[in-house]
Structures are given as C-alpha cells and as structure tokens.
C-alpha cells in the first residue's frame, strides 16, 4: 500500500503537518498541557486511524474492485487469516509513523520524561485492531468509490470529535456526550495518558476494548470476497 503517493500523504503528510502547524500556531486549548505535549498523543491517535482505518480500508476496497479479493477467495487463505495479515502489515507501517512523529515531536521541543511506553504500545495495538476492524467492515460491504468517501468522511468526523487536536470538553454539550463513547476519543485519551505519564483511564480502555472486539468480529463476519 505504501507504493502509492496518496497513501504517503495520508499516513505521514497529514499527521506531521498538523503536528508542526498547531505546535507553532498556538491557538488550541490544551487542557493545561504544553501544546506539543497535547498534540503528540493526538497526532499518534490520528496516525493509527489513518493507517489502520482509512489507508487499509481504501486499499482493501480497491482490492475488491480489481478482483484481487475474488481471486484470493479461491485460495486457502480464509477471512480470518486475511484480516490478521492486514493488521500485522499495518503494525509495521505504524512503527514507522511512531518513529517519525516522535522525532518531529522531539525536534519541536517535546520531552517524553514521564511517558509510559508500555501503555503507548498496548494502546496503539488495541487501536489498530479496532480501526482496522472498522475500515475492513466498510471495505467488506461498500463499493470502492462509496467506500473511499465513507472512510474519508469518518476520518474527518473522528478527527474532530475524537479529542485528537481539539479537546472534547471544548465541544458543544450534545457533541461531547456523544463523542465520549467514540473509539477515537478513547484512543487519544489513552495515548495522552501514556505519553504524559498520567493515570490509566479505565473507562477509555474498556470503551476501546469493546470497540475492538465488535469491529473485528464484524469485519470477519461481514467480509465478502466477491463484489
């Protein structure tokens, strides 16, 4: 998937651009953190969504329209192994993203003094399973073009309502009470806790866990090989 330029923009370009821009243009409310300490975990959450959901989902949608999935469906691969392979491949991309965002963050003055790296890694793994499940569920059911639009639309909604670059408590009341149950909120809150050495938010962990199981089960069950 990394052979295509547009994927590179989505996977690296947008997260790094947001990180650089909003750390330099200090207009965001940051819940008492320095803007860079607030942004690094948010952008990490965004990176997980872009690689696990959007990039993977769109690529899988095109694999269907090219007939690649129909052909793979005639091999002993099976849905479960396909989903597992895709999630594993995504993890490798995320290692690159994590490295790059950490480097850019460090260059912009971020200091990971109290970071809980175990929590960060576990959260990213859980987030990957969750968002890959969502992306593959959409890709498994929608036509390639509709899927492309749906993935991008969902990305934007989750970006705005997920506490990624804007804290959810700045949202209108109704939006906030809705946003607290979103997987993007859970992901960014857990990453923020991990990066800044805060206490583990159990509620977020449960929400992300439930989303992961649901999304992955639906990806495996609703997946169709042919168009």
């Amino acid at each position, binding site marked *: 998937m990394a*052979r*295509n330029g547009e994927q590179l923009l989505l996977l690296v370009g947008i997260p790094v651009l947001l990180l650089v821009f909003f750390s330099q243009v200090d207009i965001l409310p940051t819940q008492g953190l320095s803007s860079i300490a607030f942004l690094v975990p948010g952008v990490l959450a965004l990176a997980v969504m872009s690689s696990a959901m959007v990039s993977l989902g769109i690529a899988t949608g095109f*694999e269907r329209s*090219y*007939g*690649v999935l*129909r*052909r*793979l*469906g*005639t*091999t*002993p*691969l*099976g849905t479960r192994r396909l989903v597992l392979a895709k999630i594993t491949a995504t993890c490798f991309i995320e290692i690159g993203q994590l490295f790059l965002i950490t480097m850019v963050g460090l260059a912009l003055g971020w200091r990971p003094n109290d970071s809980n790296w175990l929590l960060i890694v576990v959260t990213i793994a859980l987030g990957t399973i969750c968002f890959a499940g969502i992306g593959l569920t959409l890709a498994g059911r929608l036509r390639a073009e509709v899927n492309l639009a749906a993935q991008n639309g969902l990305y934007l909604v989750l970006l705005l309502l997920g506490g990624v670059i804007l804290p959810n408590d700045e949202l209108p009341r109704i939006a906030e009470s809705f946003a607290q149950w979103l997987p993007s909120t859970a992901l960014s809150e857990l990453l923020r806790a991990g990066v800044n050495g805060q206490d583990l938010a159990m509620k977020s962990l449960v929400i992300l866990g439930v989303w992961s199981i649901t999304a992955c089960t639906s990806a495996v069950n609703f997946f169709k*090989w*042919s168009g």
Partner: protein
Amino acid sequence: MNMRNSTSENALSVRNLVVDYSDLRAVGNISFDAKAGSVTAVIGPNGAGKTTTMEVCSGVRTATSGTVSILGLDPQRDRLEMNSRIGVMLQDGGVYPSARVGEVLEHYCNLFGNRQRASDLILAVDLGSKRKATWRKLSGGEKQRLSLALALAAKPELIFLDEPTSGVDIVGRDLIRELVRNLANSGCTVILATHELDEAQRMADHVVMFNHGRLIADSSLQDLLGTNQTVTLRTTNEIDLTALAQHMNCHVEQNGTEIRLLRSSDASFIARLSTWFVENKFVLNDLNSGAPRLEDIYRELNSASERVDK
C-alpha cells in the same frame, strides 16, 4: 438426469442447482457431473449461466438452492480445504495493477504451500522474460497465462478455467491448450467454460451445454458428435426438403445448392439417402459424410431450445 447417483469417481457433482440474482434467475435447476481426470467443457452463449455455475462450484458465490460437491467437499462448508486442492482461473483481473509477475506467483505459491515453485510455473507459462513486469504492463494474452499459472500454484486435483484463451494469440493458445492437456493427462479434472466451440471440441471428453440458465445437452463429446453426424450434398434439382426430412427422419437445411442433414448414427443412413435420390431421379453430387463440428450441433440444439421456449 436429476436422479443420477453421484459416485466417488465424480470429481464434481451438481444437483438441482438454482441461482437467483435480485430479479433474475441466472441458473434454473441444473444437474451434471464431471468424472475425475476428465475434461468437461461448459459451453453456451453469454449470460447462459456458465460463469455463475462456475462461481458457485468454486465457492465464490452461494447458491439459492441445490447442492454442489467438489472432490466430495461442500464449496461453502469445506471452503478452505477445497481451496487448497483446486485451482481457479477467473475471467479477467484479480491482480493488483502495480504487482509484479514474479512477486504475485511467489505469493500464491506460498498461500497454497504445496511446494509448487514459482520459478517453474513462470517458465511453464512462458513468462520468464516478464518476471519483473507489472500486471498493468502485460498484454491480454500474458495476463491470461499468468492467471493460469496462479491457478496452477494450487497443484490442483481439479481446475476451473473460465475462458482461458480469450484474448490470447495463437501461440499463447497452443501453449495454454498443451498445459491443460498435460494437466488432464496427469489426472487433474478440468472444467473448462468457453465460447470457443472449436477449443471445446479439441479438448473436451464431456460437454455440458447451457442456454438461458438451463442444460440443453450433457453428454460425452463422442456421443454428441456420433449421434449428430452431418451429411452434405449438392444437387441441381428442386428438392422438397420436408419430404426429405420426413423420409430420413432428421433435420435438413438448404444453403444455395448445398443441402445439409444432421444424421443419426444409423448405419444405413447413406444407403437410404442415395436410394431416395435415385428413386426420385435427382442428381446427387459431392456427397459428404463428415465428423460434424460442435458448432453445428450447438446451433441446432440452441435453436431447438429457443423453439421450445416459444
């Protein structure tokens, strides 16, 4: 036909298969078998239900009703086991445009995991010089040959070939036909869907003909050709075709001075025909009794089925 028992020597067995699309019956209650190690040609016009039937048999599509057994397995329930033992060559596509020939084959060989070597398959389909080429750069014929190689990566006991030579030049065709023949000789059951009746006639042991989602023939090639010998002759006289058809009890058609009869396997056919001409004092020229072309039989059966439909 529906009540035939499927025996263990049948590698494929279809019983009362019905496939409906949202508002269309694509396949309506068909049954047929393919003997292990034989080449079965599935022929019929576009939209006759060939591809749909192949898709159900290869597990890609689910049937509305009816049963299919492939190597004794159920294409839905035993899908993964079945997939590891069969090869499927689909019509068009199925490879990422930016994927390279060598990589794709390597990948499929690994997926099947039965020690088939990508480098051997590349040579077998004569794509040795295209190892590094991407799918989008391949010609139509090269794509077909790669598709066949991907199906062969399964080391299949049974292989589905959907229009394997469409868009392939003459050299490529010969290569594909030879590969298929070798497969059959080595005991692999071949199910070949094709428009090319000449190809079916050259390669098949058994022929299954589709029209409008129904079977209009299911017979060995030998029987089909044997019971449908054609006799052509020329005459300068006005012939009453109906009388001739009645006398010979067969289908007769006229094309200019040429008259064509679709004969039965009756040994006295030619003798009775010549006697009729002598008795009526008609001139009889260029009498020719040849092996019929599958194409003629196909036309005849198709038009007969259209008449039944009306």
